[in-house]
């Protein structure tokens, strides 16, 4: 059963360490996952390394799933091209897209995670 979540995006050390090597395997690993709360992770019947599909009003993306220290109903995706496939492009006139606090649906998937080059 898919679950409803709120997406938060942000920096991580690994995203920062690899940000000048965007076409590398390390950057791919650093940004192509999402963290879910333990409860949500288990509710979706996930194991470490499984993939999830995230769908919002603004797009969809497949990423790897991990358990993170998060409240139930919140997922965290490191800032980057995977997060940007689902965050809100509406700026409410401020010029700033909503990178945090976007509603989405998450479900387990067997689809592959796209490579960085294939996201374009």
């Amino acid at each position, binding site marked *: 059963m898919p679950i409803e979540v*709120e997406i*938060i*995006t*942000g*920096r*991580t*050390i690994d995203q*920062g*360490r*690899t940000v*000048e*090597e*965007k*076409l*590398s395997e390390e950057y791919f690993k650093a940004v192509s996952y999402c963290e879910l709360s333990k409860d949500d992770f288990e509710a979706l019947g996930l194991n470490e390394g499984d993939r999830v599909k995230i769908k919002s009003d*603004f*797009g969809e993306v497949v990423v790897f799933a991990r358990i*993170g*220290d*998060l*409240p139930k109903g*919140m997922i*965290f995706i490191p*800032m*980057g*091209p995977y997060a*940007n*496939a689902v*965050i*809100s*492009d509406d*700026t*409410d*006139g*401020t*010029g*700033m*897209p*909503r*990178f*945090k*606090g976007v509603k989405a649906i998450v479900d387990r998937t067997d689809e592959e995670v796209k490579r*960085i*080059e294939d*996201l*374009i």
Partner: protein
Amino acid sequence: MENVVCTFCGSVCDDVQFDTQQYKGKKFCALGMSKFSAKERIKSPMIDGKAVSYEEAIDAAVDILVNSKKPLLYGWASTVNEAIRVGVILTEKLGGIYDQCSSVCHGPGVLSTIEEGLPGGTLGQVKNRADVVVFWGSNPMEAHPRHPTRYSVTAKGFFVKDRKERKVIVVDVRKTKSARLADEFIQIKPGYDYAIFSALRMLVKGEEIEAEEVGGVSVSKLAELAETMKNAKYGAILYGLGITQSRGRDRNIENAVKLIQLLNRYTRWIIWPMRGHYNVVGAGEVPAWEVGYQYAIDFSRGYPRFSPAEFAVSEALLRRDCDAALIVASDPVAHLPKKAVEHLKSIPVIQIDPFPNMTTLISKVVIPAAITGIEAEGTAYRMDGIPLRVKKVVDSEYWSDEKILHEMLKRVEVRMGFS
């Protein structure tokens, strides 16, 4: 071993060393260490993926720019003021849009400064005086790893002598790595920062709140925080993208500034943004001293106009309001919403950057640049507005951003008939 200044994050650490023979850093955090290490470079200037000379690439770039009705010149946060200055002049001559990374980062803080001002202080003040530090929606352990030790948590200052004399509070929607080093972590509901700042303003004034909780935090906990704030000798809210990129955006910061103004009736408080890239402050300050605005500036009418609703990079791309782009020291393809990237893919793009990234993959003209802080020098503003000279310590075949942009400007002036 050379003494250098780090050109990764907004902390711009000026106490680090770099071994130019081994190409290895010393005293850096993980982020700085990666910056000062060997990695894949763009090997030569390219047009449509074919290697060409710098002159040929610059000619092709100028061709695109002068034939464009309204080019977008975007990026600028990871280069020096000298290069940014040429970029602003270039945008003006071309009648284009100047925008920089703040528009997807701390731009809302600029809007709130226009409304309310910014009661601020330097990192030196934070280190020496701040006995209460609140990280609000910011996560220095992952974004500015040496900030806590150099300035804001364990730093030994003149008045605040050690960690025991400083109370550190983290307010966030999730338990970040920074939350773990705090004396107190206050977890709030996403999108409720504005309401919580309002509640704190009421509590500081001594007004009653007719609710049990605000934004997921009990009113008694908020009352405790308000008391801690009032009793500080010198407090600092150091905020991050948690409040600039979520519901409320600039209004969140405006409300936080109002709280700080109020607290200053009782004691001394400052508020300051935790700026990301090493010279993202310069990307705003330089156009401010050149043409009066920090970002989202349009020159298409021959004079500068500021309007983030129209000229911030996301808006300009979503409305397809630019027909060419020059991207300098940035990677918008990786960092903008997908729909905004769609338009970027459909127009000719010129990129100036030391490293291949996602924008390289869609660029018609790619011009590799020297790495500023290692192979090129200049001036950068630290996150608190302190200018620091970043060094050139390694010779390189690559041209600096400043030199590339100068050559472009010279040719644009000739092509467009400016004397």
